[in-house]
C-alpha cells in the first residue's frame, strides 16, 4: 500500500497548520477591533489639529513658518510605516511598491532620498534595496504611544530645518475597510494647501501669540506632523490586523481544501490496497 502512510502524515501536518492559522485569524480579528477603536479615538485630535493649522494659514501672521513655504527640492525625505511582523498578505509589499514608484519618480527628477523607517519589515526591505536609511524605529507593539515616535519624526524635521531635505512624505496603509487597505504616499512638508473651504476672511486678522509667534508655531507644527505620523501608525496597525485576518482565513480555507483532497486520495489508496490484497488471496486460493 504505497503512500498511504505518507498521505496520513501529510494530512496531519496540514491540519496542524490549519489549527495555527485559525488561531491567528481569531487573534487578528479581536486585535483589529481594538486597533480600530484606537484609530477612531485618535481622530478628534488630528481633526482639531488640522482645523487649527488651517486657521493659522488663513491668519496673516507677521512670521511665515518654513513648514508652509514651498522651496526648490534637491533632496526629499520619506517616512515609511510598515508592520513588524509578516503573515499579513501583500500589505507591506503593496506599500513598498507604491513607495518605490514615488521614489523612482523623484529619482528621475534628480532628487536624492532619505528614508526613515518605522517597523521591522520596512527596515529589512529598504536595507536590502540599498536605500539611505537615516532612522529606524520598530517594535512599537499594538498600542503605540506618541513619545515613541517623537524621535523618528524629529530626525526628519531637523533635516528639514537644516535644509538637508526640502520635502517630506509619509507612506502608510490607509484603512478603508476590513477587505481593503490602500497604500498611500502623502506629502507632509511643506504642508500642502488643503484646498480653501471658501471662507476667505476679508479683514486682516491674526492671533495673539504667547510668548512669540515663532515659538508657538514651532510647537504647533511639530505636534501637527507628529499627530499625522501617529495617525498613520495607528491606522497601519488596524490595516495589519485586518490583512492578517483575511490572509489567515484564506490560509485556513486552503488548508481545509487540501485536507479534503488528500483525504480522498488516501481513501482511494486504501481501497486499492484492500482490493489488491483480496484479489491476491482469491487468486492464491484458486491456485491451490
Amino acid at each position: 500500500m504505497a503512500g498511504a502512510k505518507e498521505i496520513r502524515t501529510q494530512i496531519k501536518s496540514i491540519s496542524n497548520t490549519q489549527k495555527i492559522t485559525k488561531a491567528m485569524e481569531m487573534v487578528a480579528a479581536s486585535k483589529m477591533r481594538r486597533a480600530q477603536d484606537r484609530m477612531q479615538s485618535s481622530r478628534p485630535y488630528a481633526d482639531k489639529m488640522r482645523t487649527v493649522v488651517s486657521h493659522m494659514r488663513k491668519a496673516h501672521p507677521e512670521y511665515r513658518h518654513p513648514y508652509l513655504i514651498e522651496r526648490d527640492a534637491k533632496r526629499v525625505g520619506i517616512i515609511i510605516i510598515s508592520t513588524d511582523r509578516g503573515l499579513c498578505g501583500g500589505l507591506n509589499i503593496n506599500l513598498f511598491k507604491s513607495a518605490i514608484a514615488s521614489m523612482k519618480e523623484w529619482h528621475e527628477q534628480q532628487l536624492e532620498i532619505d528614508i526613515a523607517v518605522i517597523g521591522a519589515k520596512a527596515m529589512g526591505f529598504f536595507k536590502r534595496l540599498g536605500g539611505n536609511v537615516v532612522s529606524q524605529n520598530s517594535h512599537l507593539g499594538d498600542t503605540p504611544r506618541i513619545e515613541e515616535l517623537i524621535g523618528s519624526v524629529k530626525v526628519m524635521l531637523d533635516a528639514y530645518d537644516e535644509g538637508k531635505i526640502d520635502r517630506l512624505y509619509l507612506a502608510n496603509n490607509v484603512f478603508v475597510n476590513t477587505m481593503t487597505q490602500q497604500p498611500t504616499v502623502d506629502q507632509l512638508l511643506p504642508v500642502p494647501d488643503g484646498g480653501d473651504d471658501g471662507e476667505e476672511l476679508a479683514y486682516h486678522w491674526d492671533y495673539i501669540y504667547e510668548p512669540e509667534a515663532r515659538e508657538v508655531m514651532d510647537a504647533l507644527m511639530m505636534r501637527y506632523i507628529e499627530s499625522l505620523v501617529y495617525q498613520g501608525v495607528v491606522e497601519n496597525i488596524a490595516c495589519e490586523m485586518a490583512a492578517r485576518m483575511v490572509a489567515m482565513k484564506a490560509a485556513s480555507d486552503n488548508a481545509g481544501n487540501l485536507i479534503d483532497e488528500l483525504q480522498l486520495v488516501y481513501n482511494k489508496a486504501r481501497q486499492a490496497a484492500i482490493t489488491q490484497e483480496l484479489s491476491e488471496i482469491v487468486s492464491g486460493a484458486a491456485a491451490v
Partner: protein
Amino acid sequence: MAMTIHVDIVSAEAEIFSGQANMVFAPAEMGEVGIAPRHTALLTRLKPGEVRVQMEGQEEQFFYVSGGILEVQPHVVTVLADTALRAKDLDEAAALRVKERAEKAMRDKTSDFDYARAQAELAEAVAQLSTIKKIRERAGR
C-alpha cells in the same frame, strides 16, 4: 441666556472633553489665562497644569494636562493636550536613539542571515508544494 463658548479638549490618543462652557481657565506659558466667550483669537503653549472648565450650571470640571497648545477662536476653545512629557533634550535623545538604530541595522550582518534563512524556507515550501502537486496528479489518474 448666558453666552457660552464651545470647548474641545483632545489628546493624541483620545478625546477628553467636548461641550459648552461659561468660562475656561488654562495654564498658559506666560501665566494662567481665563477665556470667556468672544475672546479674541489666541494661540499659546500650555504648561503642565490644570485646565478648568466652568460649565453652564456653575459646576466645574478639571483636567490635568502635561502641556500642549491652546487655540482660541471667538466661540471655540481648543486644547491640544500632550500625552508625552516634552523637553528639548528628551526629544533630542529620542532622535539619536532611532538614528543609532538605523546605523546599527545597516552595519549588522544578521539580516543577511535572515535572508538566507528565508531562502531556505522558501525552497522547502516550494518542495512541499511540488510534492502536493505530485500527489494531486497521482490522485487525478
